[in-house]
Protein backbone atom coordinates (compact mmCIF):
# COMPACT_ATOMS: atom_id res chain seq x y z
CA UNK A 1 0.00 0.00 0.00
CA UNK A 2 1.25 3.45 -0.88
CA UNK A 3 0.67 6.53 1.26
CA UNK A 4 -2.67 8.29 1.39
CA UNK A 5 -2.98 11.28 -0.92
CA UNK A 6 -5.66 13.69 -2.02
CA UNK A 7 -6.27 13.37 -5.75
CA UNK A 8 -8.73 14.21 -8.49
CA UNK A 9 -10.54 11.17 -9.89
CA UNK A 10 -8.98 11.56 -13.32
CA UNK A 11 -5.47 11.89 -11.89
CA UNK A 12 -5.98 8.89 -9.66
CA UNK A 13 -6.98 6.87 -12.73
CA UNK A 14 -3.83 8.02 -14.51
CA UNK A 15 -1.55 7.26 -11.56
CA UNK A 16 -3.20 3.87 -10.99
CA UNK A 17 -2.41 2.99 -14.59
CA UNK A 18 1.27 3.86 -14.09
CA UNK A 19 1.37 1.82 -10.90
CA UNK A 20 -0.26 -1.09 -12.69
CA UNK A 21 2.65 -1.11 -15.13
CA UNK A 22 0.98 0.70 -18.03
CA UNK A 23 3.80 1.43 -20.49
CA UNK A 24 2.04 3.37 -23.23
CA UNK A 25 -0.78 5.90 -23.35
CA UNK A 26 -2.40 7.32 -26.47
CA UNK A 27 -5.05 9.99 -26.14
CA UNK A 28 -6.71 13.14 -27.40
CA UNK A 29 -7.86 15.96 -25.09
CA UNK A 30 -11.53 16.29 -24.16
CA UNK A 31 -13.44 17.70 -21.19
CA UNK A 32 -14.07 16.27 -18.59
CA UNK A 33 -11.33 13.66 -19.14
CA UNK A 34 -8.36 15.91 -19.94
CA UNK A 35 -6.57 15.47 -16.61
CA UNK A 36 -5.89 11.86 -17.56
CA UNK A 37 -3.91 12.83 -20.66
CA UNK A 38 -2.31 15.86 -18.96
CA UNK A 39 -1.11 13.79 -16.03
CA UNK A 40 0.27 11.00 -18.17
CA UNK A 41 2.01 13.43 -20.54
CA UNK A 42 4.69 13.92 -17.88
CA UNK A 43 4.20 11.01 -15.52
CA UNK A 44 4.49 8.17 -18.01
CA UNK A 45 7.85 9.21 -19.43
CA UNK A 46 9.08 9.68 -15.85
CA UNK A 47 8.07 6.06 -15.25
CA UNK A 48 9.86 4.83 -18.38
CA UNK A 49 6.81 4.65 -20.62
CA UNK A 50 5.76 6.28 -23.88
CA UNK A 51 3.09 8.92 -24.32
CA UNK A 52 1.60 10.16 -27.58
CA UNK A 53 -0.97 12.90 -28.00
CA UNK A 54 -2.65 11.46 -31.05
CA UNK A 55 -4.26 13.45 -33.88
CA UNK A 56 -7.69 11.99 -33.02
CA UNK A 57 -9.38 9.36 -30.91
CA UNK A 58 -9.44 7.18 -34.01
CA UNK A 59 -5.66 7.30 -34.24
CA UNK A 60 -5.30 6.85 -30.48
CA UNK A 61 -7.26 3.61 -30.32
CA UNK A 62 -5.33 2.22 -33.28
CA UNK A 63 -2.04 3.11 -31.57
CA UNK A 64 -3.39 1.18 -28.59
CA UNK A 65 -3.99 -1.77 -30.90
CA UNK A 66 -0.40 -1.65 -32.12
CA UNK A 67 0.97 -1.36 -28.63
CA UNK A 68 -1.26 -4.10 -27.22
CA UNK A 69 -0.14 -6.38 -30.05
CA UNK A 70 3.40 -6.02 -28.65
CA UNK A 71 2.20 -7.35 -25.31
CA UNK A 72 2.78 -4.17 -23.29
CA UNK A 73 0.17 -2.74 -20.94
CA UNK A 74 -1.50 0.13 -22.75
CA UNK A 75 -4.37 2.53 -22.19
CA UNK A 76 -6.40 5.28 -23.81
CA UNK A 77 -8.86 7.64 -22.16
CA UNK A 78 -11.52 10.02 -23.37
CA UNK A 79 -15.05 11.28 -22.82
CA UNK A 80 -18.23 10.31 -24.66
CA UNK A 81 -17.81 11.86 -28.16
CA UNK A 82 -14.25 10.52 -28.24
CA UNK A 83 -15.45 7.09 -27.22
CA UNK A 84 -17.80 7.07 -30.19
CA UNK A 85 -14.78 7.54 -32.47
CA UNK A 86 -12.93 4.65 -30.87
CA UNK A 87 -15.60 2.05 -31.52
CA UNK A 88 -14.20 0.59 -34.74
CA UNK A 89 -10.82 0.19 -33.07
CA UNK A 90 -12.34 -1.49 -30.01
CA UNK A 91 -14.04 -4.00 -32.27
CA UNK A 92 -10.69 -4.79 -33.92
CA UNK A 93 -8.95 -5.07 -30.55
CA UNK A 94 -11.63 -7.44 -29.29
CA UNK A 95 -11.36 -9.46 -32.51
CA UNK A 96 -7.58 -9.63 -32.17
CA UNK A 97 -8.01 -10.67 -28.52
CA UNK A 98 -5.69 -7.96 -27.30
CA UNK A 99 -5.61 -6.69 -23.72
CA UNK A 100 -5.97 -2.95 -23.14
CA UNK A 101 -7.68 -0.52 -20.79
CA UNK A 102 -10.14 2.14 -21.94
CA UNK A 103 -11.32 5.04 -19.82
CA UNK A 104 -14.59 6.86 -20.52
CA UNK A 105 -15.25 9.86 -18.28
CA UNK A 106 -18.81 10.30 -19.51
CA UNK A 107 -20.42 13.61 -20.34
CA UNK A 108 -23.88 14.38 -21.65
CA UNK A 109 -24.95 13.31 -25.12
CA UNK A 110 -26.16 12.81 -27.79
CA UNK A 111 -24.12 15.03 -30.06
CA UNK A 112 -21.65 17.45 -28.63
CA UNK A 113 -24.03 17.52 -25.66
CA UNK A 114 -22.97 19.06 -22.39
CA UNK A 115 -19.91 18.95 -20.18
CA UNK A 116 -21.78 17.78 -17.08
CA UNK A 117 -21.81 14.20 -15.76
CA UNK A 118 -23.94 11.61 -17.49
CA UNK A 119 -24.39 7.88 -17.90
CA UNK A 120 -25.80 7.85 -21.39
CA UNK A 121 -22.96 5.73 -22.78
CA UNK A 122 -24.17 2.63 -20.95
CA UNK A 123 -25.57 1.02 -24.10
CA UNK A 124 -22.46 1.87 -26.10
CA UNK A 125 -20.14 0.49 -23.42
CA UNK A 126 -22.09 -2.58 -22.43
CA UNK A 127 -23.85 -3.66 -25.59
CA UNK A 128 -20.96 -3.26 -28.01
CA UNK A 129 -20.74 0.11 -29.71
CA UNK A 130 -18.59 -1.19 -32.51
CA UNK A 131 -19.54 -3.76 -35.11
CA UNK A 132 -19.73 -7.49 -34.68
CA UNK A 133 -20.03 -10.13 -32.01
CA UNK A 134 -17.81 -8.91 -29.22
CA UNK A 135 -17.94 -7.88 -25.60
CA UNK A 136 -16.01 -5.36 -23.57
CA UNK A 137 -15.63 -5.88 -19.84
CA UNK A 138 -16.99 -2.68 -18.22
CA UNK A 139 -16.24 -1.59 -14.65
CA UNK A 140 -17.98 1.37 -12.98
CA UNK A 141 -16.44 2.92 -9.87
CA UNK A 142 -18.26 5.28 -7.50
CA UNK A 143 -15.35 6.79 -5.54
CA UNK A 144 -11.87 7.98 -6.42
CA UNK A 145 -10.37 5.09 -4.45
CA UNK A 146 -12.50 2.60 -6.29
CA UNK A 147 -11.60 4.20 -9.62
CA UNK A 148 -7.91 3.65 -8.84
CA UNK A 149 -8.52 0.07 -7.70
CA UNK A 150 -10.62 -0.78 -10.72
CA UNK A 151 -8.05 0.62 -13.16
CA UNK A 152 -5.48 -1.75 -11.65
CA UNK A 153 -8.01 -4.56 -11.76
CA UNK A 154 -8.84 -3.67 -15.35
CA UNK A 155 -5.24 -4.28 -16.45
CA UNK A 156 -5.31 -7.71 -14.82
CA UNK A 157 -8.65 -8.68 -16.31
CA UNK A 158 -7.49 -7.49 -19.73
CA UNK A 159 -4.39 -9.68 -19.53
CA UNK A 160 -6.31 -12.59 -18.06
CA UNK A 161 -8.95 -12.68 -20.79
CA UNK A 162 -7.05 -10.99 -23.63
CA UNK A 163 -9.87 -8.51 -23.98
CA UNK A 164 -10.43 -4.76 -23.80
CA UNK A 165 -11.62 -3.59 -20.38
CA UNK A 166 -13.36 -0.26 -19.95
CA UNK A 167 -13.52 1.80 -16.77
CA UNK A 168 -16.70 3.87 -17.09
CA UNK A 169 -16.82 6.96 -14.89
CA UNK A 170 -18.42 10.36 -15.27
CA UNK A 171 -17.60 14.04 -15.00
CA UNK A 172 -18.32 14.19 -11.27
CA UNK A 173 -16.02 11.34 -10.42
CA UNK A 174 -13.37 12.65 -12.76
CA UNK A 175 -13.26 16.10 -11.21
CA UNK A 176 -13.90 15.15 -7.57
CA UNK A 177 -10.99 15.17 -5.10
CA UNK A 178 -10.83 12.37 -2.54
CA UNK A 179 -8.24 10.51 -0.53
CA UNK A 180 -6.70 7.62 -2.41
CA UNK A 181 -4.17 4.98 -1.56
CA UNK A 182 -2.65 2.90 -4.34
CA UNK A 183 -2.51 -0.83 -3.82
CA UNK A 184 0.85 -2.42 -4.40
CA UNK A 185 0.82 -4.57 -7.47
CA UNK A 186 -1.15 -7.55 -8.62
CA UNK A 187 -1.31 -10.84 -6.79
CA UNK A 188 -2.78 -12.70 -9.73
CA UNK A 189 -0.97 -15.13 -11.88
CA UNK A 190 -1.44 -13.94 -15.44
CA UNK A 191 -0.89 -15.81 -18.68
CA UNK A 192 2.38 -15.28 -20.56
CA UNK A 193 1.84 -13.14 -23.68
CA UNK A 194 3.32 -15.65 -26.02
CA UNK A 195 1.20 -14.35 -28.90
CA UNK A 196 2.74 -10.85 -28.88
CA UNK A 197 4.78 -9.53 -31.82
CA UNK A 198 8.38 -8.72 -30.88
CA UNK A 199 10.33 -9.61 -33.98
CA UNK A 200 10.54 -13.33 -34.73
CA UNK A 201 14.14 -13.58 -33.45
CA UNK A 202 12.79 -12.92 -29.95
CA UNK A 203 10.43 -15.89 -29.90
CA UNK A 204 11.78 -19.03 -28.21
CA UNK A 205 10.19 -21.23 -30.88
CA UNK A 206 11.58 -19.05 -33.69
CA UNK A 207 8.08 -18.88 -35.19
CA UNK A 208 6.73 -15.55 -36.34
CA UNK A 209 3.62 -14.09 -34.73
CA UNK A 210 0.65 -12.66 -36.62
CA UNK A 211 -2.01 -10.53 -34.93
CA UNK A 212 -4.98 -10.13 -37.24
CA UNK A 213 -8.72 -10.61 -37.48
CA UNK A 214 -9.32 -11.26 -41.17
CA UNK A 215 -11.08 -14.47 -42.19
CA UNK A 216 -12.23 -15.43 -45.66
CA UNK A 217 -13.13 -18.98 -44.61
CA UNK A 218 -16.58 -18.91 -43.01
CA UNK A 219 -16.11 -22.22 -41.22
CA UNK A 220 -12.89 -21.07 -39.59
CA UNK A 221 -14.40 -17.72 -38.75
CA UNK A 222 -17.44 -19.32 -37.13
CA UNK A 223 -15.11 -21.43 -35.02
CA UNK A 224 -13.30 -18.30 -33.91
CA UNK A 225 -16.48 -16.40 -33.05
CA UNK A 226 -17.70 -19.42 -31.07
CA UNK A 227 -14.41 -19.37 -29.20
CA UNK A 228 -15.07 -15.72 -28.34
CA UNK A 229 -18.54 -16.72 -27.17
CA UNK A 230 -17.10 -19.34 -24.83
CA UNK A 231 -14.68 -16.80 -23.43
CA UNK A 232 -17.47 -14.30 -22.83
CA UNK A 233 -19.57 -16.98 -21.09
CA UNK A 234 -16.64 -17.74 -18.81
CA UNK A 235 -16.29 -14.03 -17.99
CA UNK A 236 -20.01 -13.81 -17.24
CA UNK A 237 -19.64 -16.65 -14.79
CA UNK A 238 -16.48 -15.47 -13.06
CA UNK A 239 -16.49 -11.68 -13.08
CA UNK A 240 -19.82 -10.34 -11.85
CA UNK A 241 -19.19 -7.61 -9.29
CA UNK A 242 -21.54 -5.48 -7.31
CA UNK A 243 -21.91 -3.77 -3.95
CA UNK A 244 -24.92 -4.22 -1.68
CA UNK A 245 -25.88 -1.67 0.93
CA UNK A 246 -28.41 -2.64 3.62
CA UNK A 247 -30.06 -5.23 1.42
CA UNK A 248 -30.51 -7.96 4.07
CA UNK A 249 -33.86 -6.78 5.35
CA UNK A 250 -34.71 -4.45 2.48
CA UNK A 251 -38.20 -4.36 0.99
CA UNK A 252 -37.23 -1.92 -1.75
CA UNK A 253 -33.96 -1.54 -3.61
CA UNK A 254 -32.45 1.30 -5.55
CA UNK A 255 -30.23 0.08 -8.40
CA UNK A 256 -27.65 2.59 -9.57
CA UNK A 257 -24.08 2.43 -10.85
CA UNK A 258 -21.26 4.90 -10.27
CA UNK A 259 -22.41 8.30 -9.05
CA UNK A 260 -26.07 7.20 -8.79
CA UNK A 261 -25.19 4.23 -6.59
CA UNK A 262 -23.28 6.55 -4.33
CA UNK A 263 -26.12 9.06 -3.99
CA UNK A 264 -28.56 6.22 -3.33
CA UNK A 265 -26.70 5.27 -0.16
CA UNK A 266 -27.56 8.65 1.38
CA UNK A 267 -31.17 8.12 0.33
CA UNK A 268 -31.17 4.78 2.16
CA UNK A 269 -30.00 6.43 5.38
CA UNK A 270 -32.79 9.00 5.14
CA UNK A 271 -35.39 6.34 4.30
CA UNK A 272 -34.39 4.14 7.20
CA UNK A 273 -34.95 7.05 9.60
CA UNK A 274 -38.50 7.17 8.31
CA UNK A 275 -38.95 3.42 8.73
CA UNK A 276 -38.73 2.58 5.01
CA UNK A 277 -36.66 -0.57 4.52
CA UNK A 278 -34.64 0.58 1.54
CA UNK A 279 -31.33 -0.82 0.28
CA UNK A 280 -29.00 -0.40 -2.71
CA UNK A 281 -27.57 -2.67 -5.34
CA UNK A 282 -24.68 -0.93 -7.05
CA UNK A 283 -23.51 -2.86 -10.10
CA UNK A 284 -19.72 -2.56 -10.40
CA UNK A 285 -19.25 -4.77 -13.43
CA UNK A 286 -21.75 -3.48 -16.00
CA UNK A 287 -20.64 -6.20 -18.36
CA UNK A 288 -20.84 -8.85 -17.19
CA UNK A 289 -24.00 -7.51 -15.57
CA UNK A 290 -24.28 -8.78 -11.96
CA UNK A 291 -27.39 -10.86 -12.57
CA UNK A 292 -26.64 -12.87 -9.43
CA UNK A 293 -27.30 -9.81 -7.27
CA UNK A 294 -30.97 -9.78 -8.20
CA UNK A 295 -32.06 -13.08 -6.63
CA UNK A 296 -33.82 -11.09 -3.93
CA UNK A 297 -37.22 -11.25 -2.30
CA UNK A 298 -38.26 -7.60 -2.40
CA UNK A 299 -41.35 -5.59 -3.29
CA UNK A 300 -39.77 -3.38 -5.91
CA UNK A 301 -36.66 -1.97 -7.59
CA UNK A 302 -36.04 1.64 -8.56
CA UNK A 303 -33.35 1.99 -11.21
CA UNK A 304 -31.69 5.39 -11.10
CA UNK A 305 -29.53 6.59 -13.98
CA UNK A 306 -28.14 9.79 -15.43
CA UNK A 307 -29.86 8.98 -18.74
CA UNK A 308 -33.30 8.25 -20.17
CA UNK A 309 -32.94 4.70 -18.90
CA UNK A 310 -30.46 2.22 -20.32
CA UNK A 311 -29.25 -0.10 -17.54
CA UNK A 312 -32.89 -0.64 -16.59
CA UNK A 313 -33.15 -3.09 -19.49
CA UNK A 314 -30.52 -5.30 -17.87
CA UNK A 315 -32.12 -4.90 -14.45
CA UNK A 316 -35.45 -6.06 -15.90
CA UNK A 317 -33.78 -9.03 -17.56
CA UNK A 318 -32.13 -9.95 -14.26
CA UNK A 319 -35.27 -9.48 -12.15
CA UNK A 320 -37.76 -11.08 -14.52
CA UNK A 321 -41.42 -10.14 -14.30
CA UNK A 322 -41.95 -11.18 -10.68
CA UNK A 323 -41.15 -7.78 -9.18
CA UNK A 324 -41.84 -4.25 -10.44
CA UNK A 325 -38.82 -2.37 -11.77
CA UNK A 326 -39.32 1.39 -11.83
CA UNK A 327 -37.12 4.10 -13.30
CA UNK A 328 -35.98 7.57 -12.39
CA UNK A 329 -33.43 9.47 -14.41
CA UNK A 330 -31.87 12.91 -14.78
CA UNK A 331 -30.23 14.06 -17.98
CA UNK A 332 -28.17 16.85 -19.46
CA UNK A 333 -25.61 16.94 -16.66
CA UNK A 334 -28.20 17.24 -13.89
CA UNK A 335 -27.74 15.00 -10.86
CA UNK A 336 -30.49 13.94 -8.44
CA UNK A 337 -30.24 14.74 -4.71
CA UNK A 338 -30.75 12.01 -2.08
CA UNK A 339 -34.02 13.74 -1.08
CA UNK A 340 -35.22 13.64 -4.67
CA UNK A 341 -34.59 9.91 -4.84
CA UNK A 342 -36.43 9.33 -1.57
CA UNK A 343 -39.43 11.19 -2.99
CA UNK A 344 -39.29 8.93 -6.04
CA UNK A 345 -39.16 5.78 -3.90
CA UNK A 346 -42.23 6.91 -1.98
CA UNK A 347 -44.10 7.93 -5.09
CA UNK A 348 -43.29 4.89 -7.23
CA UNK A 349 -44.10 2.40 -4.47
CA UNK A 350 -47.03 4.29 -2.85
CA UNK A 351 -45.30 4.79 0.47
CA UNK A 352 -46.70 8.24 1.28
Amino acid at each position, binding site marked *: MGKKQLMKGNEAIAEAAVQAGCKTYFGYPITPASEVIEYLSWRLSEAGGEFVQAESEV*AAINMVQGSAACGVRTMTGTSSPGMSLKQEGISYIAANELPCVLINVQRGGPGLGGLGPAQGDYFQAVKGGGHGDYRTIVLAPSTVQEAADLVMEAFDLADLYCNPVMVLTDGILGQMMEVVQFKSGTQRELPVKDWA*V*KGSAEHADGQRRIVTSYYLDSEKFEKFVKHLGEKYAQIQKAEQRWEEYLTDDAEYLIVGFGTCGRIAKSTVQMARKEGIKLGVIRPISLWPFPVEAFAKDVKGYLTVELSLGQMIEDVKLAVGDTTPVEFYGRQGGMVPTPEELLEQVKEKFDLK
Partner: protein
Amino acid sequence: MNKVFDKTKGLTDVKTHYCPGCTHGIIHRIIGEILEEKNLLGQTIGVTPVGCAGFAERYFNCDMVGAAHGRASAVATGVKRSLSDKVVFTYQGDGDLASIGTAEAIHSAARGELITVIFVNNAIYGMTGGQMAPTTLPEQKTSTSPHGRSIEKAGFPLDMPKILSQIEGAAYIASGSVDSPKSIIQAKKYIEKAFDTQLAGKGFSFVSLLSTCPTNWGLSPRDAINWLQENMIPYYTLGELKTWK
Protein backbone atom coordinates in the same frame (compact mmCIF):
# COMPACT_ATOMS: atom_id res chain seq x y z
CA MET B 1 24.29 -25.85 -62.43
CA ASN B 2 24.76 -22.45 -60.89
CA LYS B 3 21.73 -21.05 -59.13
CA VAL B 4 21.46 -17.41 -60.18
CA PHE B 5 18.12 -16.52 -58.62
CA ASP B 6 16.23 -17.75 -55.59
CA LYS B 7 13.03 -16.68 -53.94
CA THR B 8 13.73 -14.37 -51.06
CA LYS B 9 13.43 -15.68 -47.51
CA GLY B 10 11.72 -12.40 -46.81
CA LEU B 11 8.51 -13.89 -48.14
CA THR B 12 6.78 -17.04 -46.98
CA ASP B 13 5.88 -19.94 -49.27
CA VAL B 14 2.16 -19.15 -49.02
CA LYS B 15 0.65 -18.72 -52.48
CA THR B 16 -0.48 -15.11 -52.87
CA HIS B 17 -4.02 -14.23 -53.89
CA TYR B 18 -3.06 -11.33 -56.18
CA CYS B 19 -4.46 -11.28 -59.70
CA PRO B 20 -2.19 -12.31 -62.57
CA GLY B 21 -0.02 -9.39 -63.64
CA CYS B 22 -0.72 -7.33 -60.52
CA THR B 23 2.41 -5.49 -59.41
CA HIS B 24 1.65 -5.79 -55.68
CA GLY B 25 3.73 -8.99 -55.93
CA ILE B 26 6.81 -7.16 -57.25
CA ILE B 27 6.64 -4.69 -54.38
CA HIS B 28 6.31 -7.54 -51.89
CA ARG B 29 9.37 -9.19 -53.37
CA ILE B 30 11.62 -6.15 -53.14
CA ILE B 31 10.59 -5.45 -49.54
CA GLY B 32 11.23 -9.11 -48.69
CA GLU B 33 14.63 -9.01 -50.39
CA ILE B 34 15.68 -5.91 -48.51
CA LEU B 35 14.62 -7.32 -45.14
CA GLU B 36 16.56 -10.49 -45.92
CA GLU B 37 19.64 -8.72 -47.28
CA LYS B 38 19.80 -6.37 -44.32
CA ASN B 39 19.26 -9.27 -41.96
CA LEU B 40 16.21 -7.59 -40.46
CA LEU B 41 13.60 -10.34 -40.73
CA GLY B 42 13.94 -11.39 -37.11
CA GLN B 43 13.56 -7.88 -35.78
CA THR B 44 10.89 -6.43 -38.03
CA ILE B 45 7.19 -5.95 -37.42
CA GLY B 46 5.07 -5.22 -40.49
CA VAL B 47 1.61 -3.69 -40.44
CA THR B 48 -0.86 -4.56 -43.20
CA PRO B 49 -3.73 -2.45 -44.50
CA VAL B 50 -7.27 -3.23 -45.56
CA GLY B 51 -7.23 -3.51 -49.31
CA CYS B 52 -5.81 -6.06 -51.70
CA ALA B 53 -2.76 -6.31 -49.42
CA GLY B 54 -4.98 -7.15 -46.46
CA PHE B 55 -3.61 -10.68 -46.46
CA ALA B 56 0.03 -9.65 -46.69
CA GLU B 57 0.63 -10.74 -43.10
CA ARG B 58 0.68 -14.24 -44.58
CA TYR B 59 3.32 -13.33 -47.14
CA PHE B 60 5.95 -11.25 -45.34
CA ASN B 61 8.17 -13.58 -43.34
CA CYS B 62 8.28 -11.55 -40.13
CA ASP B 63 6.00 -10.67 -37.24
CA MET B 64 2.90 -8.94 -38.58
CA VAL B 65 -0.09 -6.97 -37.33
CA GLY B 66 -3.26 -6.33 -39.34
CA ALA B 67 -4.69 -2.81 -39.08
CA ALA B 68 -8.18 -1.45 -39.74
CA HIS B 69 -8.75 0.36 -43.05
CA GLY B 70 -6.50 3.43 -43.11
CA ARG B 71 -5.04 3.00 -39.64
CA ALA B 72 -1.79 1.20 -40.40
CA SER B 73 0.42 4.23 -39.60
CA ALA B 74 -1.32 4.63 -36.24
CA VAL B 75 -0.97 0.93 -35.45
CA ALA B 76 2.69 1.13 -36.51
CA THR B 77 3.13 4.11 -34.19
CA GLY B 78 1.79 2.00 -31.33
CA VAL B 79 4.18 -0.83 -32.22
CA LYS B 80 7.22 1.41 -32.61
CA ARG B 81 6.56 3.25 -29.34
CA SER B 82 6.38 -0.12 -27.60
CA LEU B 83 9.38 -1.74 -29.31
CA SER B 84 11.67 1.17 -30.11
CA ASP B 85 14.61 -1.07 -31.04
CA LYS B 86 12.64 -2.94 -33.71
CA VAL B 87 12.07 -2.09 -37.36
CA VAL B 88 8.47 -1.24 -38.20
CA PHE B 89 6.92 -0.82 -41.63
CA THR B 90 3.45 -0.43 -43.09
CA TYR B 91 2.22 -1.46 -46.51
CA GLN B 92 -0.79 0.58 -47.62
CA GLY B 93 -2.89 1.15 -50.72
CA ASP B 94 -4.01 4.54 -52.01
CA GLY B 95 -7.55 4.25 -50.67
CA ASP B 96 -6.13 3.17 -47.35
CA LEU B 97 -3.49 5.87 -47.01
CA ALA B 98 -4.65 8.76 -49.16
CA SER B 99 -8.35 8.67 -48.31
CA ILE B 100 -9.56 7.09 -45.09
CA GLY B 101 -6.11 7.14 -43.45
CA THR B 102 -4.77 10.51 -44.60
CA ALA B 103 -4.76 11.98 -41.11
CA GLU B 104 -2.85 9.03 -39.67
CA ALA B 105 -0.25 9.16 -42.46
CA ILE B 106 0.28 12.93 -42.25
CA HIS B 107 0.51 12.98 -38.47
CA SER B 108 2.88 10.03 -38.33
CA ALA B 109 5.10 12.06 -40.64
CA ALA B 110 4.59 15.21 -38.55
CA ARG B 111 5.68 13.39 -35.39
CA GLY B 112 8.72 12.12 -37.24
CA GLU B 113 7.61 8.63 -36.29
CA LEU B 114 10.46 6.18 -36.86
CA ILE B 115 8.51 3.94 -39.20
CA THR B 116 8.75 3.14 -42.89
CA VAL B 117 5.59 3.49 -44.95
CA ILE B 118 5.27 1.79 -48.32
CA PHE B 119 2.48 3.36 -50.34
CA VAL B 120 1.05 1.48 -53.33
CA ASN B 121 -0.69 3.81 -55.75
CA ASN B 122 -2.76 1.98 -58.35
CA ALA B 123 -5.17 4.88 -58.92
CA ILE B 124 -8.15 2.73 -57.91
CA TYR B 125 -9.81 0.77 -55.10
CA GLY B 126 -8.72 -2.74 -56.03
CA MET B 127 -10.16 -4.83 -53.23
CA THR B 128 -13.69 -3.49 -53.40
CA GLY B 129 -13.98 -3.83 -57.15
CA GLY B 130 -12.57 -0.77 -58.86
CA GLN B 131 -14.13 2.34 -57.37
CA MET B 132 -12.61 5.82 -57.65
CA ALA B 133 -9.65 6.48 -55.37
CA PRO B 134 -8.25 9.85 -54.28
CA THR B 135 -5.45 9.03 -56.72
CA THR B 136 -7.71 8.27 -59.68
CA LEU B 137 -6.61 10.44 -62.61
CA PRO B 138 -8.84 13.13 -64.19
CA GLU B 139 -11.20 11.49 -66.69
CA GLN B 140 -10.20 7.99 -65.55
CA LYS B 141 -13.18 5.62 -65.61
CA THR B 142 -13.94 3.61 -62.48
CA SER B 143 -17.09 1.95 -61.14
CA THR B 144 -17.99 5.14 -59.22
CA SER B 145 -16.84 7.47 -61.99
CA PRO B 146 -18.28 5.58 -64.96
CA HIS B 147 -18.04 8.64 -67.22
CA GLY B 148 -14.52 9.42 -66.06
CA ARG B 149 -13.39 11.30 -62.96
CA SER B 150 -14.97 14.73 -63.12
CA ILE B 151 -12.69 17.47 -61.85
CA GLU B 152 -15.73 19.66 -61.14
CA LYS B 153 -17.42 17.10 -58.93
CA ALA B 154 -14.60 14.94 -57.60
CA GLY B 155 -11.64 17.29 -57.62
CA PHE B 156 -8.04 16.47 -58.38
CA PRO B 157 -5.92 13.49 -57.37
CA LEU B 158 -3.81 13.77 -54.25
CA ASP B 159 -0.07 13.54 -54.78
CA MET B 160 0.85 12.05 -51.42
CA PRO B 161 4.67 12.04 -51.70
CA LYS B 162 4.56 15.71 -52.70
CA ILE B 163 2.34 16.54 -49.74
CA LEU B 164 4.40 14.56 -47.26
CA SER B 165 7.67 16.05 -48.50
CA GLN B 166 6.49 19.42 -47.13
CA ILE B 167 6.43 18.02 -43.60
CA GLU B 168 9.39 18.71 -41.34
CA GLY B 169 9.20 15.37 -39.51
CA ALA B 170 9.49 13.43 -42.74
CA ALA B 171 13.15 12.53 -43.29
CA TYR B 172 12.93 10.48 -46.45
CA ILE B 173 10.25 10.74 -49.14
CA ALA B 174 10.62 9.00 -52.48
CA SER B 175 8.27 8.28 -55.31
CA GLY B 176 8.91 5.56 -57.85
CA SER B 177 7.27 2.90 -59.94
CA VAL B 178 7.51 -0.81 -60.72
CA ASP B 179 6.68 -0.76 -64.41
CA SER B 180 10.11 -1.80 -65.78
CA PRO B 181 13.27 -3.58 -64.61
CA LYS B 182 14.93 -0.18 -64.35
CA SER B 183 12.19 1.33 -62.22
CA ILE B 184 12.09 -1.79 -60.04
CA ILE B 185 15.81 -1.48 -59.33
CA GLN B 186 15.24 2.19 -58.53
CA ALA B 187 12.26 1.36 -56.29
CA LYS B 188 14.38 -1.12 -54.37
CA LYS B 189 17.00 1.55 -53.76
CA TYR B 190 14.31 3.88 -52.44
CA ILE B 191 12.90 1.29 -50.07
CA GLU B 192 16.38 0.40 -48.89
CA LYS B 193 17.06 4.06 -48.11
CA ALA B 194 13.76 4.32 -46.33
CA PHE B 195 14.70 1.48 -43.99
CA ASP B 196 18.15 3.04 -43.54
CA THR B 197 16.39 6.25 -42.51
CA GLN B 198 14.54 4.39 -39.81
CA LEU B 199 17.63 2.49 -38.66
CA ALA B 200 19.57 5.76 -38.42
CA GLY B 201 16.76 7.31 -36.34
CA LYS B 202 16.38 10.22 -38.78
CA GLY B 203 12.59 10.38 -38.88
CA PHE B 204 9.60 9.27 -40.88
CA SER B 205 10.34 7.46 -44.15
CA PHE B 206 7.97 6.94 -47.04
CA VAL B 207 8.15 5.37 -50.47
CA SER B 208 5.32 5.73 -52.96
CA LEU B 209 5.19 3.28 -55.84
CA LEU B 210 2.98 3.45 -58.91
CA SER B 211 1.43 0.04 -59.36
CA THR B 212 -1.01 -1.65 -61.74
CA CYS B 213 -4.47 -3.09 -61.23
CA PRO B 214 -5.10 -4.93 -64.49
CA THR B 215 -8.30 -6.48 -63.15
CA ASN B 216 -10.10 -3.26 -62.29
CA TRP B 217 -8.52 -1.19 -65.01
CA GLY B 218 -9.96 -3.78 -67.41
CA LEU B 219 -6.64 -4.26 -69.17
CA SER B 220 -4.24 -7.12 -69.83
CA PRO B 221 -1.11 -7.08 -67.64
CA ARG B 222 0.95 -5.73 -70.56
CA ASP B 223 -1.59 -3.04 -71.43
CA ALA B 224 -1.83 -2.12 -67.76
CA ILE B 225 1.92 -1.44 -67.69
CA ASN B 226 1.54 0.70 -70.80
CA TRP B 227 -1.36 2.60 -69.26
CA LEU B 228 0.67 3.28 -66.11
CA GLN B 229 3.60 4.53 -68.20
CA GLU B 230 1.46 6.71 -70.43
CA ASN B 231 -0.89 8.15 -67.82
CA MET B 232 0.39 7.87 -64.27
CA ILE B 233 4.07 8.59 -64.78
CA PRO B 234 3.46 11.97 -66.44
CA TYR B 235 0.95 12.93 -63.74
CA TYR B 236 2.69 12.08 -60.48
CA THR B 237 5.83 13.65 -59.03
CA LEU B 238 8.63 11.08 -59.16
CA GLY B 239 12.09 10.82 -57.68
CA GLU B 240 13.57 11.41 -54.26
CA LEU B 241 11.57 14.35 -52.93
CA LYS B 242 13.28 14.56 -49.59
CA THR B 243 16.42 12.90 -48.31
CA TRP B 244 19.00 13.31 -45.59
CA LYS B 245 21.96 11.36 -47.02
